[in-house]
């Protein structure tokens, strides 16, 4: 019975430390977010119109439309659909993912947000779900490759 209580106390300590750690990190993230938004607001008011037109130029590397891509995931094929609106990736959807393990796939789909944020499929794979996230990434790469504005670049 003695070892039972020792184990219980150490388990509770570990859980306590993890919860405390999470609270500290959440607090830090909040402060950072506030600082980031503040500096963004200042920059926006300093240079308003100029920046925006620049941004449009960068984003127009894609043609508007709906594109599909396919790549191998953990077991089967993963199919994705990319929606390009006003020259930028507005949506990336999984159409089918056969044979993927749901726990791993659930973790892997967070790569979609990274791709949309980055406006390109050149992102790191999710550690712990390497196969599934690499599948999504490669499928997205194929879809975005089809959407790339090759003609304009040649001009």
């Amino acid at each position: 019975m003695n070892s039972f209580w020792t184990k219980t106390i150490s388990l509770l300590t570990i859980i306590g430390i993890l919860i405390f750690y999470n609270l500290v990190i959440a607090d830090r993230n909040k402060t950072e977010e506030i600082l980031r938004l503040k500096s963004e607001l200042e920059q926006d008011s300093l240079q308003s119109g100029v920046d925006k037109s620049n941004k449009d130029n960068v984003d127009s590397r894609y043609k508007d439309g709906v594109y599909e891509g396919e790549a191998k995931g953990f077991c089967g094929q993963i199919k994705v659909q990319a929606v390009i609106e006003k020259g930028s990736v507005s949506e990336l959807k999984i159409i089918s993912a056969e044979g993927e393990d749901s726990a791993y796939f659930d973790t892997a789909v967070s790569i979609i947000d990274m791709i949309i944020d980055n406006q390109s499929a050149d992102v790191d794979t999710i550690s712990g779900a390497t196969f599934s996230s690499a599948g999504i990434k490669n499928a997205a790469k194929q879809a975005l490759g089809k959407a790339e504005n090759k003609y304009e670049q040649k001009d």
Partner: protein
Amino acid sequence: MSKKIKTKTQKRILNYFRRVVQLLFFIFLPSAFTSAFSGVKYIFTQIGLKQSIEFNSFVAILIVLCGFTIVFGRLFCGFACAFGSLGDAVHGSYLWICKKIHKKPIQFKGKWEKKLLYIKYLLLSVIVLLCFSGVYSKMSGWNPWDVFSLIRSGNFHLAGYIVGIVLFVLILIGMALHERFFCKFLCPMGAVFSWLPVIPLFSLRRDKNNCIKGCSACKRCCPANISLPDKNEMKCSGDCFQCQKCVNTCPKNNIHIGFFRIHRNEIVFTLLRILILSLLLYLAGV
């Protein structure tokens, strides 16, 4: 005589029951053990990156399996873990082949076994440190569990997995020669489980007064070499993975689960726990 036959069939039923449960879990929930361990790796990777630990599906499965183990013991290891089932199958086949060719199976037993039990803790700490330092995500191709998962799901693109394949084959050989070799000595998830405080309500115990003098059948058949506590002792070894082989071996049917004396109703009781486990894993999104 009729009573003896009855217990024999009952023992056989208990044995078949375990095989069927293992097979079903192997087919339908083969990735629970890697998912749970991914939860451990995820937690330490995030701490290493100084990022918050989010409640993702890996963490959910880790919590479910740990919670279940605290209440019901390591039934997951004995009945539901795909890697453990693989080990049982490999060891069973080895014994079967030995029987067919009339050779005595090689046995490794000795005091060294007890010392080797600590390897799993060492392995766990090494993996956790690698995750914490961020080295782990850069290592690829060495994990024998990845090799197993890939082969099991029919993906044979194993190029770049040479180290993993070699380790996997070595583990398979170990599993064949020594029952539950991996679970006992190497499994890092097993190391986590054996650190958990298992509530001794549902642990296996025996009525020592009723034992045949000098009999140690239960200890000798136990893959984890545990000597069972008396029915009045509130004890549970962290290394017991509830395979319940001892229940089947005892010549006097002297071993029971829990103190409710559910005599020879182990199947019903185990089935109940298996159903609870499946439900929990389903809810956690395996």
